[in-house]
């Protein structure tokens, strides 16, 4: 089956699947991403869905321009990235503001909760501001059970009201990254 949205084999508490199902319900047909561990399940679901165009990017701002082109052609797109990629997007976000283009990005956070790598902290701290200075509206997703409601509201604001929306998925919700093999 191409469309995993109708699959019954999903366990409760599977928030990436909730997001996947919500994006499908919102009419999203293009998924582009710079990989992140926090997005890996959603990326897998996207690749497994033959009805989705899934595009791997070399850098995050490509996803801004791809989303713009998708909308021009009648498609709805979503960009998946990590917070460190938000800084790469700043100038390209002016394309969305200038053309009042719908835009939805789901950002997995680093550098904000039990972070092991100090190099992640500066961009993690600046993620919200980097989006807001360019006019992007920022939502937070803190609890897995809120995934559907938050992504659904974000999609509606983006695609029905021509807004640029980022959903920041909290590092606390994603869980600690394991840096050493457990014995």
């Amino acid at each position: 089956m191409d469309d995993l949205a109708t699959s019954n084999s999903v366990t409760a508490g599977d928030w990436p699947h909730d997001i996947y199902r919500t994006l499908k319900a919102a009419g999203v047909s293009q998924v582009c991403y710079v990989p992140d561990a926090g997005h890996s399940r959603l990326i897998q679901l996207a690749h497994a869905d033959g009805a989705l165009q899934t595009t791997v990017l070399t850098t995050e701002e490509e996803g801004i321009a791809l989303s713009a082109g998708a909308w021009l052609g009648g498609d709805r797109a979503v960009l998946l990235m990590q917070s460190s990629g938000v800084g790469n997007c700043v100038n390209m976000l002016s394309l969305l503001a200038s053309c009042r283009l719908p835009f939805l990005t789901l950002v997995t956070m680093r550098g904000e909760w039990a972070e092991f790598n100090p190099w992640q902290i500066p961009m993690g701290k600046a993620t919200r501001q980097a989006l807001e200075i360019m006019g992007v509206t920022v939502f937070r997703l803190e609890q897995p059970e809120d995934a559907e409601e938050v992504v659904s509201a974000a999609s509606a604001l983006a695609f029905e009201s021509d807004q640029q929306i980022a959903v920041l998925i909290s590092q606390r919700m994603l869980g600690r990254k394991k840096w050493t093999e457990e014995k």
Partner: protein
Amino acid sequence: MHGHPGTLDRREAVKTLLEDRGDLLVVSGLGSSSYDVFAAGEHPGNFYLWGAMGGAVMVGLGLALAQPKRPVVVITGDGEMLMGIGSLLTAAAKQPGNLSIVVLDNGHFGETGMQMSHCGLGARLDAIAAGAGFASATKISDLTGVADFRPQLQWLDGGPRLALIRIAAVDVPRALPPRDGVFLKNRFREHLGFAVT
């Protein structure tokens, strides 16, 4: 370094490229490329970028994936292409049959004072596109070559293809397309049959 400077007039090259364009959808890169496409003939299927430097190929890719039954061409300059060089890898990875990239290469940043670009200093975008996995990469240096390449812009498979057109590094008078992004967006979507709401 380039073996020889380009001699083609950019306006003539783009005009020749867009003759009998049929269903072709055009995305033009920031700067002189947008002026060239506008000067070749205003069309609702043109989307002129006035910013988003480095993003032209990606706008074209998103559009080509959304509209697989329409041919899409991105017309941009070597400077704009260089800023988004990774997008050649991204486009190649998707293999959109209906997407063509035309790079107008004068080896310089024409809009900002004619500083020499990486292409002028020896970079070969056709080789980079081939290395990225483009189905074809063609180098063109005269109008006959442009006219010979033109039919490929209508193809819906066999892409992505890249044509590197060597143009002269001379200033030409500006021809300014509309620059209101919301107008350009709505006009383009209306052309494709989407209601403006």
